[in-house]
């Protein structure tokens, strides 16, 4: 069955019509290389500059602090490796959390092999990093703290201002992976005191393959991509003009009505959470009930496995995701869910439904209605459920 009910906006979003329209001329009519001095080259450069201004505005940064990249993962890699290698003379210790995106975690693992030391902060049952833990982890040789703004799996929003404040007090560079938060939270880099921030276009109805790194002026960082003089000599490679243009438009649209967007999605989110938890037994919300991304629902269904759940939902035209090992391609369940203290079994039975601009109330009702028989069917097949029923009787 074709996907008719898309509940995986945290994975990616469709490009909005207005975004696509702004992008299209830059594939052919205005195809010039922004580094060229003739007219169609200049047109490309102007378009890139406008996109940069638009994104800077959404973050309350200066335009010259926005650097375009090939996506969120590149932004994370650049921020962490770039700061680590540029500040090696000051120290070799990095602090991050256990629930970061793989783009951060695997970059940190790489740096450990290169002689850096990394502290991975634990989180509480809601997925929150504690400010005391951060304070205690800081050493004389700490050069970078990287804590994600909001988690992609469970939606938990960290106390970024407090965490960044602790870093600032100690003169440590603070990076945040805001790929999920961008377009879903009001982010003011000045107010928050952030030095580096990663964002991505395809999570906010822009195209895939383009992102940005905000780098506060004066932050000591090496480049990741060496080559030509693009992006003020800091990120080489001919600009992805259509992608950057689309990103700029998507960012502008995302922040035009951000309050309304947050309010609407939060309402739908809570309706979906309540609907599932009240209608289906042996379910549990993962993540924080309120310090949570407006479009994120993550629920564990006991006694069943997530991939089986996803396949069954797919048969009903519903697209969702799970933290089960069987869906990740890896052999263990989600590192985020297990870091919050969830048993492997409950992590295997997790379902993530993420909502977005095209989600309707009817779709929420549909999912709730379809979930119940699906869960029942799988539970009736499960030897784990039968044990529980036996005890209940």
């Amino acid at each position, binding site marked *: 069955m074709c996907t008719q009910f898309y509940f995986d906006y945290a994975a990616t979003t469709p490009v909005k019509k207005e975004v696509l329209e702004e992008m299209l001329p830059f594939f052919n009519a205005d195809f010039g290389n922004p580094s060229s001095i003739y007219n169609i080259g200049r047109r490309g450069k102007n378009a890139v500059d406008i996109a940069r201004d638009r994104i800077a505005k959404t973050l309350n940064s200066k335009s010259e602090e926005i650097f375009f990249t090939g996506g969120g993962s590149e932004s994370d890699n650049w921020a962490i490796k770039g700061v680590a290698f540029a500040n090696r003379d000051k120290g070799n210790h990095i602090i991050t959390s256990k629930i970061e995106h793989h783009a951060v975690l695997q970059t940190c693992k790489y740096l450990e092999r290169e002689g850096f030391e990394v502290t991975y902060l634990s989180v509480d049952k809601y997925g929150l990093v504690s400010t005391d833990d951060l304070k205690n982890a800081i050493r004389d040789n700490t050069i970078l703290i990287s804590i994600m703004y909001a988690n992609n799996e469970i939606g938990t929003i960290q106390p970024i201002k407090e965490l960044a404040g602790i870093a600032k007090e100690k003169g440590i560079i603070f990076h945040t992976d805001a790929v999920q938060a961008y377009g879903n939270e009001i982010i003011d880099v000045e107010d928050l005191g952030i030095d580096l921030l990663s964002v991505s276009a395809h999570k906010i109805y822009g195209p895939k393959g383009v992102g940005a790194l905000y780098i506060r002026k004066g932050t000591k960082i090496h480049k990741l991509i060496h080559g030509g003089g693009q992006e003020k000599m800091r990120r080489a490679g001919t600009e992805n003009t259509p992608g950057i243009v689309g990103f700029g438009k998507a960012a502008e649209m995302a922040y035009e009505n951000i309050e309304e967007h947050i309010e609407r999605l939060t309402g739908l989110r809570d309706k979906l959470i309540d609907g599932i938890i009240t209608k289906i037994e042996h379910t549990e919300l993962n993540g924080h009930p309120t310090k949570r991304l407006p479009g994120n629902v993550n629920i564990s269904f006991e*006694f069943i*496995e997530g991939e089986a759940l996803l396949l069954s939902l797919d048969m009903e035209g519903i697209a969702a995701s799970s933290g089960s090992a*069987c869906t990740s391609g890896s052999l263990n369940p989600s590192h985020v869910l297990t870091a919050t203290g969830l048993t492997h079994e409950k992590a295997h039975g997790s379902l993530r439904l993420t909502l977005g601009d095209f989600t309707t109330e009817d779709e929420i009702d549909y999912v709730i209605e379809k979930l119940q028989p699906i869960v029942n069917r799988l539970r009736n097949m499960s*030897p784990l459920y039968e044990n529980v029923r036996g005890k209940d009787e």
Partner: protein
Amino acid sequence: MYNEKVMDHFMNPRNVGEIEDAEAIGEVGNPRCGDIMRMYLKIDNNDVITDVKFKTYGCGSAIATSSMATEMIKGKTVKEALKLTNMAVVEALDGLPPAKVHCSVLAERAVKAAIYNYAKARNLMYEELEGFDPNDGHDHHHDHEEE
């Protein structure tokens, strides 16, 4: 990702349930790994498996392979059932994605575990069960670390 036959056995699994007076019951896997399979066999005096039922907690391929395995051993003798391999189950399903083939091992092991318990209770010996340990953790996919 799954072919039609696998999806059919996942959506309409054959032989789901329990057999109260089963001669043989075997359970393998553990919830930590995300899959448990329990197999019930009804075996007559001629060593023929006259009925099979299963219960599985696991992913789509675990459920589909359970279903297919029960079909493949129904009506067979115990000795024949012991010859069932996970690859034969995979083949009967017209294949599984490479990352999912390990799930089929559970089906083969569940059948063996049931017969192992059956043989043990009756002091029977099957050379096919030599070296088989039903409690030999279901660690086939936990023996290497992620990069």
